[in-house]
C-alpha cells in the first residue's frame, strides 16, 4: 500500500497549524514586542496554506522542484520582513523549524502501524523543511545586507558636509577613514560647493581622520589637485602631531600642499590670501 503523505497532511491542516502555533507560543524568546500573536498567526497560516497547496506526492522527494516556487516566495518575503524588523537569526530559524515538529507529530499520529513507512515519510518532510530553513537564512542575510548597504550610503552622504565659513571660503571636515570611494564623494561635494558659492578657497579639515598613510595622503593630494584645476586653492588643516610624524616617517611628499595645524590657522591664512584682516574694534 502506498501512502499519500501530501493528502494526509492536507487533511490535517487545521491540526498542523494549531500544533505549530502552540510550539511557537511556548517558546520563551517569542518577541511580542515586534509582532502581535494575531500577526504571527496570519503569517503562519499563510505559510502552511501555501506549503500544503504546493505539496503533492510527486514533488515531496525533490526539494528543488519548480512547483515549490510559490512556497519559497512566501518564505522569502516573511524572512526578509523579519530581518528588517530586527528579529535575530535564531528567532527566524525557530519559526521555520518548529513547523517540522508539527508536521512530524501529525505524521506520527496518522501512520501508527508502519514504522518503516513513518521513518521514510518523516525523512522526506524533514528534508523539505531543512531546505526551507536554508532559503530562510539566505534571504535573512540578504535582508540584513540591504540594511547595511543602505546605511553605508547614508553614512557616505551625511559624513561630508560642506560649510560656508566666509564669503568665498568653504570648509569641509572629514570624519573617518578616507578610502577611494569616499574620496570621490568628498571631491564631488567640495567641488560642487565651490562652483555653487564661487569660492576661491577650500579648507579640508582632517582632524577627524584617524590615520594618514600613503594611500590617504594620495587621496588628499588628488583632492587638492582637482580643486586647483577648478581654479581654487585648497588648504589642508587639522594635522595632528602624530599625523605629521607618520607623514615624515613614511616619506610622503606634501610639499605641494598648504597644510595648517588647525582650522583657525587655515582660516587666518585664507584671510591673508584674500587680503582680509580681522581687527579688534576700539571702544571709545
Amino acid at each position, binding site marked *: 500500500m502506498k501512502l499519500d503523505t501530501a493528502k494526509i497532511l492536507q487533511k490535517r491542516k487545521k491540526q498542523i497549524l494549531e500544533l505549530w502555533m502552540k510550539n511557537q507560543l511556548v517558546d520563551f524568546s517569542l518577541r511580542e514586542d515586534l509582532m502581535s500573536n494575531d500577526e504571527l498567526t496570519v503569517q503562519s497560516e499563510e505559510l502552511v496554506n501555501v506549503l500544503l497547496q504546493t505539496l503533492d506526492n510527486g514533488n515531496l522527494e525533490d526539494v528543488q522542484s519548480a512547483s515549490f516556487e510559490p512556497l519559497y516566495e512566501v518564505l522569502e518575503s516573511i524572512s526578509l520582513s523579519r530581518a528588517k524588523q530586527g528579529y535575530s537569526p535564531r528567532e527566524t530559524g525557530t519559526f521555520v523549524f518548529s513547523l517540522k515538529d508539527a508536521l512530524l507529530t501529525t505524521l506520527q499520529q496518522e501512520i501508527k502501524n508502519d514504522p518503516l513507512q513513518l521513518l521514510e515519510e518523516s525523512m522526506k518532510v524533514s528534508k523539505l523543511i531543512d531546505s526551507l530553513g536554508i532559503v530562510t537564512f539566505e534571504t535573512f542575510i540578504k535582508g540584513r545586507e540591504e540594511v547595511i548597504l543602505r546605511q553605508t550610503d547614508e553614512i557616505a552622504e551625511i559624513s561630508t558636509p560642506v560649510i560656508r565659513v566666509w564669503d568665498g571660503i568653504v570648509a569641509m571636515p572629514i570624519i573617518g577613514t578616507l578610502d577611494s570611494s569616499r574620496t570621490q564623494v568628498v571631491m564631488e561635494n567640495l*567641488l560642487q560647493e565651490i562652483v555653487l558659492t*564661487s569660492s576661491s578657497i577650500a579648507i579640508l579639515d582632517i582632524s577627524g581622520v584617524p590615520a594618514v598613510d600613503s594611500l590617504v595622503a594620495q587621496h588628499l593630494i588628488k583632492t587638492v589637485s582637482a580643486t586647483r584645476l*577648478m*581654479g581654487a586653492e585648497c588648504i589642508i588643516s587639522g594635522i595632528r602631531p602624530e599625523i605629521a610624524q607618520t607623514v615624515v616617517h613614511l616619506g610622503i611628499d606634501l610639499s605641494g600642499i598648504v597644510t595648517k595645524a588647525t582650522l583657525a590657522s587655515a582660516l587666518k591664512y585664507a584671510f591673508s590670501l584674500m587680503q582680509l584682516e580681522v581687527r579688534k574694534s576700539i571702544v571709545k
Partner: protein
Amino acid sequence: MDKIPILKIGHFLMVAIQVDLYDRLALNLEADLVQAVSKTSAKGVLIDISAVSIVDSFMGRILGNIAGMSKVLDADTVIVGMQPAVAITLVELGLPLKGVQTALNVEKGMELLQKKIKIVDEEAFDDDSTLQ
C-alpha cells in the same frame, strides 16, 4: 570646416568652447589662437571650458600647448569654468595640467589676467625709475 570663434576684448583674447571637441577641431583652435595672439599682441588668453563635458589626455595636451605657446609670445593663459567631474577625471587620469592657470569663472579669470598685467606694468615702471 568647423571653427571656434576667438573674441578680442581689450588686451585679451577669449574663447568659449561650446561644442564637443574632436581632435582636428582642437588642433585648429591651437593654431588659430597662436596666430591671433601674435597678430593682436594680446596680453592674455581666456579659455572657457564650462560647456565641455570631456577632457581627455589629447585635449589636455592641446590646452597645455596653447598655454606654453602663448607664454613664449608673452601672453598668459587662464582656463576657466572646468566642471567638477572633469577636474576629478583629469586628476585620476594623471593629468593635473601643470603650468596652466585656472579660475572658477570668466569673471575671476579676467581679474587674474588683469592683475598680471598690472604687475608687469608696475615692474616696467620700476625699471624706468631706476634708469633715471
